[in-house]
Every structure is written in C-alpha cells, then in structure tokens.
C-alpha cells in the first residue's frame, strides 16, 4: 500500500537557515552582562506566586545528587552546552522552587521542580500526570469506528494528525488502500492543522516573552483555519474527520475560494510576525542561545520535530517515510543549526510557509473521486441505498453498532505532527476493538527533555524554553 514507509527514499535537500546574524556566538558580552540584562527581565516578569511553599505531593522530589548516573542527562546535570556555567555552590545555598502546575506559561498543567542557585537553574524535574484521563484504556473499550473520537482529544492542537496516525495504523492492519482524493484531503487537512498549531505556538511564544499582542495576531489567523475546519467537519476541534477508511465527508462547496483566502491571510499574518520578531532586540536577546539542545541529546531523548530540526537533524517523516501520498507534493524541510529557541522560531515560521505551499499544491491538483474507500467491510453504504435496501440498512447499522473486525497483528504507524513524531501502536486480536492502543506522543519526550534544555540557564528563560517546545499537556498525559 502507498502509505507504507519507504525505506529506500533518496537523500533530500534541506536548506539550512541563515540567521540574520550570529549574535549569540559573539563573545563581546560577558556572562555578568548577560545576567544583568536577564535580571532586568526577571524583575519585570517574576510572579510572586512562585514562592508559595511546597505542595503536599512529597514523593516527587528530586533525587539525591549523584545517586543516579543513568539520569544525569535527563536531569540536566550532564549538560554543558549553555552559556551560563557556574561552579555549583554549597548545597546549603541551593533553593528549591516549585513552578506550576497552574502557571500560565506552562501551557496546561505542567509542574516543574527546580533547584536554583540564585537565578540559575541547577537541576529541574518535570512532574506530569495532572491531565491523565486514561485514554489508552478508553481506547481499548471503543471500536475502531469510534476510536478516532478518542485519539483526537489527546493532542487538542493537532487533532487531525492524531486521527491520521490512528487511521494509518488501522489501515495498515486491514491492508486497505485509500483513494487518491481521500489521501489528498488528508494531506490538505493535516497541513492546515500544522499551520493552525504553529500559529498557536507563535501566539504563546510571543505572549510568554512579553509580546502580548502576538496572542491576538496568532489567534486571529488561526481562527480562519478553524472556521474552515468547522465548515467541513462540523467542529472546530476534536473533529473525528479522518477515520479508518477515508474521511468522514467530502469538502464543502466553495472550499477552493476559502483555502485561497486562508493562504492569503496567513501569509500576510506570518509576514507581520516576522516584522514584529526578526529585528526585535528583546525577542532576539531572550531567544538566542537559550534552551539549547544538541543533536546527540535529541537522539538519546527521542526529541523529534521542529526541535530536532532546529538542532540540525535533517529528519522529517514526511520526507523519509512518506504517508498518505505526501511525497507527491513539493516542499522543503527547514533545518537550523544552533538548537536554541531562536532557531526553533525560524524553523516553525518556515514550516508554516512550506505547509501553506503544500496546501496550495493540493488545491491545484485535488483529484476527483471518492473521499473514502469503497471497501464495504469498513465503509457504510451510501445514504441513498439505505432508503431502498433493507440489507444496506442492516449493513449500516451493524457497522456503527458493532464495528468492523481487524485482522490480528500489531502495527506502528507514525506521522509528522506539528510537534514531531506522532506514532500509534496498535495490537489487534482480530476483534472489533483494539487489544492495546498506545500513542507515542512527541510532547511526552519533549517535556522529558526540558531539564536538558533549561539547566544552567536563568529562571526567566524557563518560560521561553517551555514555549519553544510547544508542549500540549493533553498529549503528554493522555
């Protein structure tokens, strides 16, 4: 089938991004000077509520220092790539600070346990689970027909990608092939979703660094994409639109004009962001050289997506293991080189443009045909047939009540979500419900990599780092 990973794909060209100038490699500023500038920032953004004593969850403490050589990397002890590096002071002078779980810049309910030496983070430990709703267990009780309603709620900023990963996994077990139009609609929707997700990232990244008006701009442009989603799928989020066997409905009439409007509007919006950010000394100073992660650390910690690409790893599942016919479209994969927040910003902004380019190509080449497979084992009969045929009615009823059976086996299908590699691991025992449904979500790895990025930097850089990893906590905790 065409959705299968193609391991023989040739090398692809990925242009590296040239930053306007390499400010953070310049050594004219001393560490003290940098710290002074950052102290100013901290004075402006520090929230007194951080200092509110400990919580009642005592067991999630930081471990004894040096008790765990295996965890040195993931706790951020073994990191030496950041610009501020002080010798560790007496342990009496270290203070423990608890950030979250309800801090606005933690993008949900992420809690960070920080060990501070003055303003510098010595160690950090992310504590998650506040949004855990047992979606993997729920997935075992829902049929494959109902399953996409469940998975779409995990990553609420890129529901289309969750549905696509789930559908690809189920389809690889079933061994069915999608019609060309269904594949093109899937590409259109997921790429639009990538744009809308990156727009939320741009909005929150700006807000967290003090550019509050970015919130308005980002959500303004995202709104037109959500309106398009609502017209086609009926919902603004959690669409349950991409399903095993195709998509739920064909695109609505006049969608071409709306896509053109979206492309025009978002392109103009992205130009505004670049105008706002690129030359902005505050934004540059707060992002360049902040939250650095190296390619080796990315590989060891399973970091993927824009963060890994900003670190210089030329890896995009759309190019390497193409799915849903995305290799038919022409696009480039932006790659950074420093692995800091600024490079992530550049990579994501470029990804928005590339995704809009893909959307435009889909618009020009949308094939005619069916929007779902005609395999009647998984697709209900058309509405018209139900009025005239008893068997069609029974068929429809059976499919929606007891679902369809999927051959026994196990599969892992991955797509490139806005955050990185999003995988679905499904074990089927030959019945209508998955025996095991596991979601490999990118944010889970990225939250785990936060200490690596943020240790040896300043407290004020935490918010910049968290915002740049673009975590969705519903995705982390599932």
């Amino acid at each position, binding site marked *: 089938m065409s959705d299968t990973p193609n391991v023989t794909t040739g090398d692809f060209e990925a242009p590296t991004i040239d930053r306007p100038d390499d400010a953070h490699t310049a050594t004219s500023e001393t560490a003290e000077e940098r710290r002074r500038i950052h102290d100013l920032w901290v004075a402006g953004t520090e929230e007194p509520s951080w200092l509110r004593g400990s919580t009642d969850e005592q067991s*999630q403490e930081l471990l004894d220092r040096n008790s765990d050589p295996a965890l040195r990397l993931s706790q951020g002890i073994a990191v030496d790539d950041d610009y501020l590096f002080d010798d560790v002071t007496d342990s009496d002078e270290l203070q423990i600070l608890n950030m979250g779980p309800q801090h606005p810049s933690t993008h949900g309910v992420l809690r960070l346990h920080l060990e501070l030496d003055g303003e510098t983070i010595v160690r950090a430990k992310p504590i*998650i689970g506040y949004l855990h709703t047992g979606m993997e267990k729920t997935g075992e009780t829902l049929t494959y027909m109902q399953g996409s309603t469940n998975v779409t709620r995990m990553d609420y900023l890129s529901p289309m990608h969750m549905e696509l990963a789930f559908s690809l996994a189920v389809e690889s077990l079933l061994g069915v092939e999608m019609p060309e139009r269904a594949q093109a609609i899937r590409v259109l929707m997921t790429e639009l979703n990538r744009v809308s997700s990156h727009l939320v990232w741009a909005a929150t990244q700006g807000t967290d660094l003090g550019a509050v008006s970015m919130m308005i701009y980002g959500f303004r442009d995202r709104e037109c994409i959500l309106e398009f989603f609502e017209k086609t799928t009926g919902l603004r989020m959690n669409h349950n639109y991409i399903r095993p066997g195709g998509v739920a409905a064909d695109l609505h009439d006049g969608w071409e004009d709306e896509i053109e409007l979206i492309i025009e509007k978002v392109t103009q919006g992205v130009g505004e962001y670049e105008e706002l950010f690129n030359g902005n000394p505050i934004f540059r100073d707060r992002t360049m050289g902040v939250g650095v992660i190296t390619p080796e650390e990315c590989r*060891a910690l*399973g970091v993927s997506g824009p963060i890994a690409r900003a670190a210089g790893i030329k890896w995009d599942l759309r190019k390497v293991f193409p799915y849903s016919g995305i290799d038919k479209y022409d696009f480039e994969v932006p790659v950074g080189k420093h692995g800091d927040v600024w490079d992530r910003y550049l990579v994501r902004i470029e990804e928005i443009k590339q995704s809009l380019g893909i959307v435009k190509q889909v618009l020009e080449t949308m094939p005619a045909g069916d929007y779902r497979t005609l395999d009647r084992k998984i697709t209900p009969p058309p509405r018209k047939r139900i009025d005239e045929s008893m068997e069609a009615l029974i068929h429809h009823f059976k499919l929606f009540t007891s679902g369809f059976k999927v051959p026994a086996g196990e599969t*892992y299908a991955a797509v490139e979500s806005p955050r990185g590699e999003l995988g679905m691991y499904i074990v089927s025992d030959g019945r209508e419900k998955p025996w095991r449904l596991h979601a490999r979500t990118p944010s889970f790895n990225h939250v785990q990599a936060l200490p690596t990025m943020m240790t040896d930097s300043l407290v004020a850089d935490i918010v910049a780092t968290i915002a740049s990893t673009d975590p969705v906590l519903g995705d982390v905790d599932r």
Partner: protein
Amino acid sequence: MTDEVFAPLAERFPDVDFEQVLASKQDVAHVPLDRYRGFVEAAHNVGFDVFVDLCAVDYLHRKPRFDVVLNLLSHTNRRRLRIRVGVPASDPTVASITGIFPGANFYERETFDLFGIVFSGHPDLTRLLLPDDWEGHPLRKDHSVGSVPVRFKASPKTS
C-alpha cells in the same frame, strides 16, 4: 533474516527471532528476557541510536503474560526496529535501558505505573501519571474500566 542492517545483530544474537510484519514490512525482533539489555546496547551500537517509544502489552492468558515493546529508529539507515521481550506475570522484571537511552526514563516509569512492570536498575522508578497513592496498575487487562470508584476530595464518603 538476510538484511545487511540486522546481519551483525543476528550473528551476535542467534537466539533472537527477526521477522517482518504486515505489508509495510515493519521489522520486529523477539528477544529473550535475559538478552534484552545486551541486545538493545548492540542495536544502539549498529546505528539504532534514536529512542522512539517504549510500552507494554498485556496478553492476560498467554505465557509469558506481558510483552515490553521498544521502538528504535536509525537516522543513518532510515530503518525502524521494534524489539519485543516477553515478561512473565510471576516476576514482571525487565532490565532498565535508561543507561543506554536516557529517553526511556519517563516511558519506563509510565509502563511501571500502568502495568506494574519493574525495570530493574531504573534510578527513579516511581509512578508518573497516576497519583502516588494509587493502588493497582490500570492498563492490565484484569483491571476493568470503572472498577475504581473515583472519590473527589470534596465529595462525601460513599461507603
């Protein structure tokens, strides 16, 4: 399996079964429990140096009852490798691979949390997603949905 990527692994580990499943030719290696850590280390050395995923599957009536499933990726070879290792219910213990892949830290904690599988050698094997005082491991198949009455802090006692 005759594949140049896996040839060094297959040579060194004759007791490991390699297979390709489905039309998408996903590579799966079935590893004996006691060879697991060594195999992962060897796979890391032949280029599977990207940690992707670790989870477990509960087969309930099968022996061994659990499977720990590890997904690795090789950027250089552009291949994925899925490593499965059977874990008996009587002694659900697997060697931890946090020393090889630090990224396995949260995944092993999650698997311990939800399946009760112990990763020996893990430096911080505590619950990750569930509250620390939670009893049981809910992703096990004998833990049915709705079997735990959820009592919220402010609600009156039900029993």
